[in-house]
């Protein structure tokens, strides 16, 4: 299982603080999150994803492999002030 921690707008929009999901890639994880929250890809594309504190931009983007015990942070920057 992969632990997913939600921050910022992701938490505000989808209410959960942390969820555990079975997934072998970030793409599969995002697909499962879309289904779980009855949302769409547009909502999830605006977030940044960190696998064990490393941005997927420095890994293999949505093809980044995941394994049991990985922690994925879903991050969005708040724009309020």
């Amino acid at each position, binding site marked *: 299982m992969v632990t997913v921690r939600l*921050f910022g707008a992701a938490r505000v929009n989808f209410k959960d603080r942390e969820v555990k999901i079975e997934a072998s890639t970030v793409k599969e994880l995002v697909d499962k999150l879309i289904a779980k929250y009855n949302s769409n890809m547009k909502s999830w594309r605006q977030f940044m994803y960190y696998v064990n504190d490393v941005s997927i931009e420095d890994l293999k983007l949505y093809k980044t492999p995941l394994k049991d015990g990985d922690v994925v942070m879903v991050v969005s920057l708040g724009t*309020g002030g």
Partner: protein
Amino acid sequence: MKINSVMVIGCGGLGGFVIEELARLGIKHLVLVDGDDFAKSNMNRQLESGLDTLGEKKAIVYKHRLERKGETKVTAVPEFFSEQNASLLDSVDVVMDCVDTAKARLFIEKKCEEHGKIFVHGGLEGSFGQACVCFPGDKTLSKFYANYTEQPHTTNAFTVATVASLQVALLSKLILDETEEIKNKLVMVDLDSFTIDVIKV
């Protein structure tokens, strides 16, 4: 880094607390940029919002607030930050991003890039907020806001004050020349579960 003058863009929630803390930190000259007036909707979180300031220009109100203390030179620019006044960046050492839309933040990033200025970003959503120092070339906000869809904000005074303090704490690291501690790092605060995370950006 010697920081004598700081521009605060946005004198609302974040800006109000940032202005207060910068003055108390001893920054000699503050340039306050905001074309907005105080409105009733600001009262939940903005330091100087009150019945006596409704309809008044925020930049002017904060100038008067600091003048009462008398130790900080304040230049009030009661206009929104734009192409027309962006050249003011050349008169300051560092910029504080205290606006409230992704679009305005990306414009600040663009102008700071063009003028070779460091800026300290802060933003929030509900009980979550973040702050980071953006050096020329970083383009941190472009990465995060690339696919961002603007949505109405939920804001409150405690998150605003916390994020503003993070911004000023980051600025103090610049003053102390401890840039390695803050370069390419985003500080995220969660006042729902009371955590602070620092991630590499």
